[in-house]
């Protein structure tokens, strides 16, 4: 077990280098550059631009720029935004807590509602109730999140006036409710379907029949024997989903004006702020790796047939 964890942690190093390099070269390959973007429509003396680029180290070849970036990173320096002159670390430390809050909110919503719907449908598979819930989840899967976001904004904020259409800089829990529901709805549909299938399948299994034959009360049969087995695939999905939720908040954060990670990535991309994009993406990659490691460990706890050596 300890060896396994150590190996997995070591595996993160190449993934970390690979993903940063990939994002870095993508930013390099994009047309336009941050210095020219500063000037906007105005015409600027090319010599001046070249001088600024030299100052910022943007005239160096890709490998050299990457090297400088990595050296800075290991000294705790995430780089500086060119336009605002703010350290990227500041931006990350501001945006991350908001996104983490939004993600956890959406995640909790996904887990609670998704699993409940799945259990509710799976217990009575192939009935009207099950079919209805399946159609509902299909609807959630097929409607893009920006449509859902705008619809939610339109009805709950503009028509009913229950919530603010925009999230303030403080991003309170009650403000985040609607964005979290929109963000989590896709995963919710997947979780519900996965749970439903898993429950329906395990209900027919031999060990469930044994549990009934043992004279156990229904509560125990479902709570202990059925749930434990049915949650194994769901937990796997939820783990990878946690990472996806963090990175996937770009659209939702845009609609509700949440100043989180997604919003900042989008902003940085527009202004070709390479350091910001690479910094944030790398952090998301790390979150993703850690959460999938946790899931794999949890998996072994849930299913004793899996042993890591």
């Amino acid at each position, binding site marked *: 077990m300890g060896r396994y964890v150590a190996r997995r942690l070591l595996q993160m190093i190449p993934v970390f280098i690979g993903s940063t390099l990939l994002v870095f070269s993508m930013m390099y390959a994009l047309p336009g550059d941050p210095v020219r973007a500063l000037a906007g429509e105005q015409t600027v003396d090319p010599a001046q631009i070249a001088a600024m680029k030299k100052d910022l180290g943007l005239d160096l070849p890709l490998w050299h720029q990457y090297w400088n970036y990595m050296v800075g990173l290991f000294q705790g320096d995430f780089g500086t935004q060119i336009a605002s002159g703010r350290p990227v670390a500041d931006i990350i430390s501001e945006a991350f807590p908001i996104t983490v809050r939004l993600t956890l909110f959406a995640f909790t919503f996904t887990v609670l509602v998704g699993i409940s719907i799945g259990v509710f449908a799976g217990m009575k598979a192939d009935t009207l109730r099950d079919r209805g819930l399946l159609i509902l989840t299909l609807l959630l899967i097929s409607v893009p999140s920006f449509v859902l976001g705008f619809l939610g904004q339109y009805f709950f904020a503009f028509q009913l006036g229950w919530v603010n259409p925009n999230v303030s800089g403080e991003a309170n829990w009650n403000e985040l409710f609607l964005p979290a529901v929109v963000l989590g709805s896709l995963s919710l549909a997947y979780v519900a379907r996965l749970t439903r299938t898993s429950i329906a399948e395990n209900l027919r*299994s*031999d*060990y469930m*029949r*044994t*549990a*009934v*034959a*043992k*004279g*156990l*009360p229904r509560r*125990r049969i479902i709570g*202990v*024997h059925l749930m*434990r*087995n049915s949650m*194994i695939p769901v937990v796997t999905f939820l783990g990878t989903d946690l990472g996806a939720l963090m990175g996937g908040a770009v659209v939702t954060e845009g609609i509700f004006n949440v100043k989180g990670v997604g919003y900042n990535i989008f902003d940085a991309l527009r202004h070709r702020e390479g350091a910001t994009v690479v910094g944030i993406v790398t952090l998301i990659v790390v979150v993703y790796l850690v959460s999938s490691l946790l899931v794999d460990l949890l998996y072994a706890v*849930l*299913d*004793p*047939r899996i042993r890591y050596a």
Partner: protein
Amino acid sequence: MTIIDHTTADVPSPHGSPEDSGPLLEVRDLHVEFHTRDGVARAVNGVNYSVSSGETLAVLGESGSGKSVTAQAIMGILDMPPGRIPQGEILYRGRDMLTMSNEERRLIRGQKIAMIFQDALSSLNPVLSVGYQLGEMFRVHQGLSKKEAKAKAIELMDRVRIPAAKDRVNDYPHQFSGGMRQRIMIAMALALEPDLIIADEPTTALDVTVQAQVMDLLAELQREYNMGLILITHDLGVVADVADKIAVMYAGRIVETAPVHELYKRPAHPYTRGLLDSIPRLDQKGQELYAIKGLPPNLTRIPAGCAFNPRCPSAQDICRTDIPALLSVTERDGTELPGRGSACHFWKETIHG
């Protein structure tokens, strides 16, 4: 010739205590059907049998003969729907379980009547330790603490002779061999010392040497606790040593009942004869093995008359029109053979011819 009613199918049991009035479990005219898309499958069509304390009834039949469905109906673990019990009674100590409340039935399950399933690997929960699954019986039914339940579980594992029970109590089902897993199933059924155990093909998934060990263990424990045992099997070899009486089922009906050795000596139904003839024998080495021709009937369309008639070598016209009743079988001179019955129009020819 008298028509056997539900009680005369009883054989005086060798171990039954005399003060017990009536059998432990009695199934009367049980019908079970399944409503499927292809129509109604009549899995059980009027089964009668009974078991007393200390007695072993073997229910013999091929797949789809309704032997397991009858057992599931007794345990109350039929899936309903699609299953339905349109008529019949299942009397446990004289009380009809089919009219009991769910809670009453639950309290009987495991405590009074327990079941051993065929495939122990899939019948045990893969994610719970065997100690937990055994201990659960004591925790739920007797309210023992976790620790006490574990001690009881170890005791049980010792009883069914699982080596190093103490070290293995926290192991999971997949860590045991097939024979050991079946022992755990037996231990689980035995946990609360029930009056009756239903063993549904307990040795089918095991290899032959382990089969013998498991059957011996089961027979020994049954003697010790003086339990009733319903042994469901399609293996004639397994039955011979342990059973007191046999009921042979075909297409949801009992076609023959007999004390175990009588049945082997002189079958009174062509189906039973066919089953006995299809056992491979050393003295017929090199010859073609006998097989009952044809296939078991589709339960949604059971043939008219005797269900066995399309496959029967001695079928006559009457077999295609009239359903034969389970009649008591007598000697040539009319002396009754206790406990014997045959549902064949031509039982006389079969047994004496």
